[in-house]
């Protein structure tokens, strides 16, 4: 009987110690959240990459775009400054994990593969992939005609468009480029039949080269969900950013900004002479 008492009291002691430990651990988790770091530092460090019209440079060399608006408002709502860390797209996830910045707000589409490495918030934009093709090479082609062995499709590597191209046009050969601009130039020069890129760039470009390019379909080829990306193991930050997106989706702010950058081109005179 005595032995049993000792046993029970030992278990009880363990339980108490354990729950205290767990309490401490959850407090530690909260204080280790990147949110605390941001508040302490007084600035939100945002990783992004130049990508029209998400983020680009105006004539003064300043950053403008949909993403820049979004990140600036997040920081404003947190009561901190915003710091943009322009990052090469191919290295943006490793840079996030290496703590070069707090969050990626970079028009990154959610994919299961990426999600194994980073956490995604709720989506803040739903963009699609559009296709633009060379008239001389592909006159009269319907979308499915591009799925042929003699067709070349250009896209930016390490990004959703190349994956989409591979899925929709498995027979076509892909020409991968570091930048969209290069992929696009290949189509204009007739070295590739078509290129795939995030809307609305292909449509804007078609307008710049009337008579040379056409869009095989006005529909988007795919629909993506773009979200903020965060390091794993930080539920507090994930909750905060996700709910920020939920709130700003409900009040229409995100849609209004999205339409401004994606549906109109009134901002274009900040980059080009009209």
């Amino acid at each position, binding site marked *: 009987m005595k032995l049993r008492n000792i046993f029970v009291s030992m278990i009880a002691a363990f339980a108490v110690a354990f729950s205290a430990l767990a309490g401490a651990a959850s407090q530690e988790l909260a204080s280790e959240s990147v949110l605390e770091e941001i508040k302490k530092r007084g600035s939100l460090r945002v990783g992004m990459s130049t990508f029209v019209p998400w983020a680009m440079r105006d004539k003064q060399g300043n950053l403008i775009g949909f993403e820049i608006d979004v990140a600036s408002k997040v920081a404003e709502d947190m009561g901190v400054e915003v710091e943009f*860390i322009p990052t090469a797209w191919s290295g943006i996830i490793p840079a996030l994990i290496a703590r070069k910045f707090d969050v990626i707000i970079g028009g990154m589409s959610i994919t299961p593969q990426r999600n194994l490495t980073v956490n995604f918030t709720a989506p803040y934009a739903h963009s699609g992939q559009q296709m633009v093709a060379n008239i001389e090479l592909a006159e009269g082609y319907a979308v499915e005609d591009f799925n042929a062995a003699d067709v070349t499709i250009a896209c930016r590597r390490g990004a959703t468009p190349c994956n989409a191209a591979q899925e929709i046009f498995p027979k076509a050969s892909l020409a991968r480029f570091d930048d969209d601009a290069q992929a696009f130039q290949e189509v204009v020069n007739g070295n590739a039949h078509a290129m795939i890129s995030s809307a609305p760039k292909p449509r804007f470009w078609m307008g710049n080269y009337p008579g040379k390019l056409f869009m095989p379909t006005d529909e988007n080829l795919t629909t993506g969900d773009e979200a903020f990306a965060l390091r794993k193991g930080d539920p507090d930050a994930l909750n905060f950013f996700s709910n920020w997106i939920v709130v700003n989706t409900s009040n229409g702010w995100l849609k209004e900004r999205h339409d401004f950058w994606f549906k109109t081109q009134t901002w274009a005179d900040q980059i080009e002479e009209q």
Partner: protein
Amino acid sequence: MSESRPRPPVEKVKRVTRLDVAIIATVVATLVYIYYRVEHVLVYEWDWPLVFEYMIHIDEVTGEIFPNLFLKGVAMTLRLAFWGTLIAAVIGIIMGLCRVSNSLFLKLGSRLYVELIRNIPPVVFIFVFYFFISSQIIPLLGLDRIEDTYSPGTLAVMRVLFGPTELFDNFLAGLICLAVFEGAYITEIVRAGIQSIGKGQWEAARAIGLSRYHVLRDVIMPQALKTILPPLAGQFITLVKDSSIVSLISVQELTFLTQDVSNTTTHFFEAWMITAVLYFMMCFPLAVLFQRFERFGLGIQKH
């Protein structure tokens, strides 16, 4: 003096040979062909003024002139080149001396360093170094949040020397990558220079009682310098050009910002051509300068 004996007059060849004509004709024909291709086959709308806007920006209201992305990139590349050259030279000289030292440990250590760097492509080295090594070391040294540590005055000076302070850790990582990388090549140049001096010089200098340090400083190095200088100058120019690889780890230098401009404007031919000219304008004066040095240095050696 050697000047007392009259030199045989040097006959200068001024005649244009048939070979010259053929070469010139080929070059001209190639240029014309390229021009034709660009003008008539390449579908491209040139817009130089738009891209030049990113060189300097003139405020329409006040008329003030601001350096824009290209010039900011040049400034950053020059910073990288300046500090990179200094650090790489220090690494190269120390490691070069280690390579010829008598200590087995120093010899093996420096050999390991050189072979490791020389047998890894720069791009691979930079990724490995940046993501695995520098992202561990720099926070450890507390260099990732310098805004909180230093006074505004210090930060202003640092801004001139190292660029935007909020990106200082990035700059530092890129700089160390570049210096460690180029240092390996300088090591080999220094080693080759020292070893080009005959054994007899060492033995003679030791025989008259000079210490190893003095042999190196007073006998070997002055002679080795002549062999070292030309390839060293070439290596420094290479360093300026190689600095473009740190754009991969997002150091905001000329190549990275050119990518930004070409992505934003989609006029990437103009953007990259301007950048090519800018790199040339940085490297060519260096080449001329080093040529002067070389002549001047050799002149002194004669006396």
